């Protein structure tokens, strides 16, 4: 059938990993070369092709295959590195490749002319390697390594323009918050290792064995589950650890689209899906709650943002919240499905935004204006200049809003409907969760509508410059082609021919998870209707507000401020955690210097004083005694010496004194 048939999926996935690594190494060795973009591109093309034909097509829907090699032995346990290919990992790997490929192509145009371009490609290749390695890791420790490497690559890429103060602040923040998650992940690994003695995913979650290794209702399993979730929370930007993601938009837009929208942030969801068998109900409930909270809060924050990329970032956070809810309710197949579709449309959204920003930045540079090219308030009416971009962005937005005929419709509905089924199965206050999700969906439609209206409708503020000969044109082909490709991916046919029933998509069919709760057919009807209706209503409102300029809220509305400032979370964190720990560290250092070292110095001072005292004692008492003898002798000698002063009178005086004394003695006697 094809040339990859004789390669096993294992070898193929190793190759998939190795190509970007090879690209990275070559670029790192070569250093500053203009061809570096080509190397990275070749690497990712090879990876994508192999991933599709060597891993995904042969591996999909067949039994999971794995291969492991001994890594090292520690104590009585031996750790293995290995490759695990099953539906989940193959899908994830393919998603990464398929998203990375257009982003690479797009970047060639987008990053053209940047002075540090070779670094960009190097980092991007490193990221691809780490991300692809993450997807197929067999061992949890191996997974962790790639997990952190992904974070590292993200750190490098966020801080790509390292002379920009905000960028380096953002990348530090991103890495540190990810570190918090990593510690959770590490604790989870340690707990699993301590109780099971292995980190091998295939052994740990062996569905076939009759006695599972993990009794998930033990306290440690709860703890470990929460720890893993903490890891996922940081990576997938869940409330309250989401604060790094909006700031991470300081990186190049292409990076944002690949890393901070489509792939890396989804790694948390992927992790949860991987270790799903570990979770008991407590953990799952926590996941649902956090997911809902995240979806809601991020959607609210998105409403108040003016920066295009920040809106999209919050949108990403919100959608990740959806995925978390999907995992939490047990439908991790739905979560993975949404992850996949989200990867396409969110990447597309970012690329479109990038195209807009690119043009705006060009305009800014040419016209020598001073404005933020990402600020919504400066953009408007662009649909005339960039119709194709506009088209792509509309498709992506519809998909995000969950409009029928788009992939988003299927995947989002799958989560909301399953959540409804889950809630109605449990009853009580759990119903609040799907209700909130529906509200968030409508809010999503509204804020993405706001974005579209503000960018592409209305009047363009800098129109006058264009009349004076400045060109403002459609994105170049190198950018357009990837966008069109992703736009195609955002539509439903890629995932299944069924327009409405997400159960019929191939992803859901393959991953299908048995849920304990029954399927409610009526929910499949009214919830999509509700969502679509709500979305349309939201758009109408948005059209009224933003296009017709009937904006009802004042600038100083405290809610808008609250949303714009992201709920003052950054300020809160800054004040409590950052300032707090710096202050604590200062106090501790002062303590160290003054108390601990002070004690040492005090002790040394004391010893020195003691030595002074002892020396004094030695000098004045011990030596004093010796000297006393000497002095006494000397003094007596001196005294007697006075007698011998050579003066007659003195001699006489002494002689007479003795005589007097003698006589006195005689008299007294």
């Amino acid at each position: 059938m094809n040339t990859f048939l004789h390669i096993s999926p294992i070898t193929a996935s190793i190759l998939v990993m190795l190509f970007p690594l090879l690209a990275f190494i070559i670029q790192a060795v070569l250093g500053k070369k203009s061809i570096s973009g080509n190397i990275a591109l070749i690497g990712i093309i090879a990876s994508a092709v192999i991933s599709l034909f060597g891993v995904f097509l042969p591996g999909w829907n067949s039994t999971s295959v794995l291969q492991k090699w001994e890594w090292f032995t520690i104590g009585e346990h031996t750790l293995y590195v290995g490759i695990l290919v099953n539906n989940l990992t193959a899908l994830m790997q393919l998603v990464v490749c398929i998203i990375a490929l257009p982003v690479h192509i797009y970047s060639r145009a987008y990053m053209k002319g940047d002075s540090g371009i070779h670094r960009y490609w190097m980092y991007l290749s490193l990221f691809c390697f780490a991300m692809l390695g993450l997807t197929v890791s067999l061992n949890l420790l191996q997974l962790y390594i790639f997990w952190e490497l992904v974070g590292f690559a993200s750190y490098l890429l966020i801080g790509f323009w390292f002379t920009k103060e905000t960028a380096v602040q953002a990348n530090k923040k991103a890495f540190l918050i990810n570190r918090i998650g990593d510690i959770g992940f590490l604790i989870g690994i340690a707990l699993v290792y301590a109780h099971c003695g292995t980190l091998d995913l295939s052994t740990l979650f062996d569905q076939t064995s009759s006695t599972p290794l993990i009794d998930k209702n033990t306290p440690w399993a709860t703890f470990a589950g929460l720890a893993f979730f903490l890891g996922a929370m940081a990576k997938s930007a869940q409330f309250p650890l989401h604060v790094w993601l909006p700031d991470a938009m300081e990186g190049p837009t292409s990076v944002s689209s690949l890393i901070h929208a489509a792939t890396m942030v989804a790694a948390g969801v992927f992790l949860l899906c991987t270790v799903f068998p570990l979770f008991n109900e407590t953990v799952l409930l926590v996941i649902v709650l956090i997911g809902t909270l995240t979806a809601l809060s991020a959607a609210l924050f998105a409403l108040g943002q003016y920066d295009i990329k920040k809106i999209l970032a919050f949108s990403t956070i919100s959608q990740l919240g959806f995925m978390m809810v999907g995992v939490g309710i047990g439908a991790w197949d739905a979560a993975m499905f949404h992850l996949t579709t989200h990867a396409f449309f969110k990447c597309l959204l970012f690329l479109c935004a990038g195209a807009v920003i690119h043009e705006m930045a060009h305009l800014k540079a040419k016209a020598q204006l001073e404005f933020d090219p990402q600020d919504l308030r400066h953009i408007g009416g662009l649909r005339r200049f960039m119709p194709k971009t506009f088209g792509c962005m509309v498709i992506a937005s519809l998909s995000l809003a969950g409009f029928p005929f788009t992939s988003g419709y299927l995947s989002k509905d799958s989560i909301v409907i399953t959540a409804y089924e889950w809630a109605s199965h449990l009853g009580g206050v759990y119903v609040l969760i799907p209700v909130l999700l529906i509200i968030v969906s409508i809010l999503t439609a509204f804020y993405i509508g706001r974005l579209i209206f503000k960018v592409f409708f209305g009047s363009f503020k800098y129109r006058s410059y264009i009349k004076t000969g400045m060109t403002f044109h459609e994105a170049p082909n190198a950018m357009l082609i990837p966008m069109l490709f992703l736009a195609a991916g955002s539509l439903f046919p890629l995932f299944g021919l069924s327009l409405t029933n997400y159960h019929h998509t191939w992803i859901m069919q393959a991953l299908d998870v048995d849920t304990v709760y029954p399927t409610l057919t009526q929910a499949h009807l009214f919830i999509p209707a509700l969502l679509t209706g709500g979305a349309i209503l939201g758009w109408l409102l948005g059209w009224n507000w933003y296009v017709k300029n009937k904006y009802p809220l004042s600038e100083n509305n405290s809610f808008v401020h609250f949303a714009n400032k992201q709920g003052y979370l950054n300020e809160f964190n800054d004040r409590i955690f950052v300032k707090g720990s710096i202050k604590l560290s200062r106090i501790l250092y002062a303590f160290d210097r003054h108390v601990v070292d002070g004690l040492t110095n005090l002790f040394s001072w004391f010893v020195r004083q003691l030595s002074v005292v002892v020396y004094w004692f030695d000098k004045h008492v011990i030596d004093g005694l010796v000297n006393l003898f000497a002095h006494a002798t000397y003094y007596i000698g001196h005294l007697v010496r006075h007698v011998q002063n050579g003066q007659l009178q003195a001699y006489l005086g002494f002689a007479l004194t003795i005589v007097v004394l003698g006589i006195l003695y005689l008299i007294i006697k």
Partner: protein
Amino acid sequence: MITLTHFLVVSACIFSIGLYAVLAKRNTIMILVGIELMINAAILNFVAFGKYDKINYGGQVFALFAIVLAAAAVAVGLAIILNVYRHFKTINPENIHELKD
């Protein structure tokens, strides 16, 4: 009635004064004078006691001897003083301490 004790007391006074002069004076001539005083005190004692020795006249005889010796001593002493003065350009005994070890 003038008793022996009267003489003795007077001689003791003169002797002490002479002693003081010998010990305290910064002037060699005055030391000689002091010596003379002491000798005189001694002579006074001689004669006072000599009153009770009619047989031998020891007191008066030795008083005469003492006077003679004193005269000789002064002569020699003055000669020495002059020599010392020539030698040391001072007659302050404090400054003459060649005897010092």
